[in-house]
């Protein structure tokens, strides 16, 4: 990598990182570097200062507390993929991490980096929407909490101020959720990725949340599919009917070398069905 010149500062605590971030208008956080460094390599990003948060212990690790699961933003995809706690309590999250990139990416890239960067084809955002995660964020003005459904706003655009850091993602344990992804074979980003989470009581679907990535500029829920599921029995006919309207009404579908908009539209339905089948299989 031959980037433009930058200052490098390693923060030892969250507060120091926030302070360093505030001290320069062109400062960027460096965690795993797997979104930022490719941009710096191409000189599409030319930060004045890199604030390395890779060694702050407070933002790493996966814990269960008071019935909720928290993943530190600095936790690598590999740690998420191989977490026994997640495998037991929220397997969809571990599954998703295992679908990201390749082993090199998974060993360096972090949850927080992926969420903050918000690539239109990133995997985590779809799952965070489906499990209704909330992100704990700290900045110059202290703590705040943002729900995943409010966080992703546009292409590479999230609800995060320049001096704020995602500290962790919190969510309820969930079994009946699944992620299904069509891999782009070069980057291994999602051409289409769908995460589905279902709540079933008394044999009927009480609630459903579907997160979609790769289809448009940012990850979104699919409310029409969710509505089509609620109140129905979790059976194949229900799944097929709901998946059959997935993506309908969605505008500005991505189109690129790897997949046209028409193909993506068709794949939204296929992968919605697969994600729902996966979720039902875990009921």
């Amino acid at each position, binding site marked *: 990598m*031959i980037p*433009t010149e930058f200052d490098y500062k390693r923060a030892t605590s969250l507060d120091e990182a926030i302070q360093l971030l505030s001290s320069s208008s062109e400062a960027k956080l460096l965690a795993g570097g797997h979104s930022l460094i*490719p941009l710096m*390599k191409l000189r599409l990003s030319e930060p004045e200062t890199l604030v390395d948060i890779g060694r702050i212990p407070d933002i790493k690790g996966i814990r269960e507390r008071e019935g909720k699961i928290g993943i530190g933003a600095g936790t690598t995809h590999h740690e998420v993929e191989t977490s026994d706690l997640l495998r037991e309590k929220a397997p969809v999250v571990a599954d998703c991490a295992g679908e990201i990139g390749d082993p090199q990416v998974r060993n360096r890239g972090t949850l927080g980096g992926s969420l903050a960067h918000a690539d239109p084809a990133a995997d985590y955002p779809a799952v965070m929407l489906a499990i209704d995660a909330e992100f704990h964020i700290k900045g110059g003005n202290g703590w705040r909490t943002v729900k995943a459904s409010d966080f992703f706003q546009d292409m590479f655009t999230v609800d995060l101020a320049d001096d704020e850091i995602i500290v962790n993602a919190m969510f309820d344990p969930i079994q009946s959720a699944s992620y299904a992804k*069509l891999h782009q*074979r*070069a980057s291994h*980003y999602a051409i289409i990725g769908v995460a589905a989470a279902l709540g079933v009581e008394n044999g009927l679907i009480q609630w459903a949340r579907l997160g979609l990535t790769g289809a448009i500029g940012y990850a979104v829920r699919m409310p029409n599919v969710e509505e089509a599921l609620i109140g129905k029995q979790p059976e194949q006919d229900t799944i097929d009917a709901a998946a059959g309207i997935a993506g309908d009404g969605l505008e500005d579908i991505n189109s690129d*070398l790897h997949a046209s908009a028409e*193909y993506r539209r068709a794949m939204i339905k296929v992968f919605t069905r697969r994600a729902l089948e996966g979720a039902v299989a875990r009921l």
Partner: protein
Amino acid sequence: MTAAERPILPKLVGERIKRREDPRLITGHATYVDDLKLPGLLHLAFKRSDSAHGVIKNIDTSAAEQMPGVELVMTGKQLAEILGPMPIGTPFPSPDHYAIATDRVRYVGEPVAVVVAADRYLARDAADAIEVDIEELPAVVDPEKAMQGEPAAVHEGFENNLAVPYVPGGTGVDPATMEVDNSALDKAFAEADVNISQRMTNQRLAPNAMEPRGVVAHWEPGKEQITIWSGTQNPHILKTMIAAQLGVGQHQVRAIAPEVGGGFGCKINIYGEEYTAAAISRKLGAPVKWIEDRSEAFMATTHGRDILAYVDLAAKRDGTVTALKLRLIADVGAYNMLLTAAVPTLTMLMLNGTYDIPVVRAELTEVFTNKTPTDAYRGAGRPEATYFVERAFDMLAHELGMDPADVRRKNFIKKDAFPYTTQMGAIYDSGDYETALDRALQNAGWEQLKQERDQARAEGRIVGLGLAYYVEVCGLGPSASLPTGGWEHAGVTIERDGRITATTGSSPHGQGNETTFAQMLAEQFGVAFDDVTILHGDTGVVKQGIGTFGSRSQAVGGTVLMNAGEKVKKKMAKFAAAMLDANEDDLVFENGMISVKGSPGSGKTFAEVASFAYVPVPLPPGVEPGLSDEAFWEPENNTYPFGCHIVMMEIDRETGEPRLTKVVAVDDAGTIINPMIVDGQIHGGLAQGIGQAMIEEVVYDEDGQLVTGSFMDYAIPRADDLPWFEMDNTVTTTPVNPMGAKGVGEAGTLGSTPAVVNAAVDALSPFGVKHVDMMLRPEKLWRLMQGGGA
């Protein structure tokens, strides 16, 4: 130590000996070009064109020149004052090609200026600060449009962008006059029961060696000599070309290929960056370094393949192929590089495939476009030929409802027909195509696979079987076939301590010749493997050489090494005979001893004889002191290895994603020195061949912009893209060299690519699909299953 106490040395040739190169390569102890550090080293960065085609109106270097640490900025025009247009290795007329563009840019990534600075980062910053004003011209992108009507011209003086206007070859073509007689061709097609006709493309690929290119040039003013380190496949050619371009004698140039992290053909060419580095080092009297980054590698290192064919095949109803005709159009990109124009002629040469086809005709046109120039890429012309022929044979099999294996078997050149002169003029050395076919069918369980496929189809799954057979021209080659000369050189020295040091002009960059050549020499002299060292890659150490390409190292480099070894061995026998008071013809070299036949206890150790040769008291009559000799050798003919690759594929009915479920390869490379290394070569070749079929494709948009400029958009095969490879060999030796070895470096790319596409078409045949062009994008296959066409 007595003879009885000495260990019996194991057999070496033919054994699976681990590559001695690997420990240093995998522990970070290897020295690549970028690892070199010289006092006062300056760094180059190139400003490159963002436009595919345009006139350079102005280059403003003032800001760059004023940046701290910048020593020199040169535009193409300024460099042209000290560096002429670059030489090429083919005889076709060719436009001038300067290392840095002087007046027009012709592809995205073409250099327009160079910066010399104190470090690499400053050099890049300064290159970014250069302002280039380019007046855009229409980009020439589609080769078929480029050669018709009134297209934009990539080069003045090359009407309709024809780099090579028309070369006919094969049946009815007089090679001396190029006169064409169509009577046999017309008759064969008129009388055929079945005609197959298909346009096929063999798409453009980016070689992507793990180590990008790099060069360090060091002109020493006091000595008036230059040392140039480069990640090249052929340091001796580099030396020759650098001397010619600098206008100095070859004695003033030393070229060194240090560790080279893969080449795949793209490091045969001598590039503008190498000439520029040499010229600037001489101008400044200082050492300079340039290291390519990956983005540059995608656009400034030669691409491979990119040839399309209109294929016509005539056959009888029983599957006998009576004629094959190909109209070939090669998109060579913006310039002729070292071998650019020659690569498609190798496609022509190999169009007989493994078949006794009585009428074969090819007509080749090469076209300039506003893209990165093409040159050799693993297989270089032969995978393209194999692809076209093997697709056509598969289409015939489907048309006739015959087993693809049977169609091939019916048309094979028979085992007793060798040497066999093809319609294209190649003389195949040896072959036993049926044995390798039978082995592959047996190893794959072909009949059972067909049942499994049919069963899967009955269940609604999309499953196909693909088989392809290849023959390759390797072991290049007599001097008549190579502008560099088609020989190789080797030197063998027995050191004073009895260790053997050998030099080879075959400069390996991943082929493992430090291991295989040591196996051969150790066995030749009856010494331990660890007592033999192979030196290569430095023209100051290796007196002469050609280099490593065209699967020639073992067949040519290996043979000459044995010849040099034999000369030294004969001389060593004279010293040993004097020491043992024996006849030199009665001596045996084994287990580190030289002994009289039949009495091993009587011998001298290798070290004792070597020591005596350097202090020969008394000097045996008629013998010079010392133990060192060299040899040149060139083969009378190329070698023609062959093989059969079989794959099974399942395509996801809903998404179009193809997945290989089985890969079976039977390859025949003649005599094998180290089966583990041969497996490795085949393994890598299969991966690259499958990569071309399934996931690799260089894409330009209509403005000539490179869309696949990074690994985000250009895939290369990874472990999880591939199933287990089931590999096996047959051995049909060649009479061309005494070892009987044919070469194996490229073979894996030949059969695998058409086998994969054949499997895809077979899988999609229930949808009426007869052909699909590479790469097998999921969307493309999905559309075929929707009935929408690719």
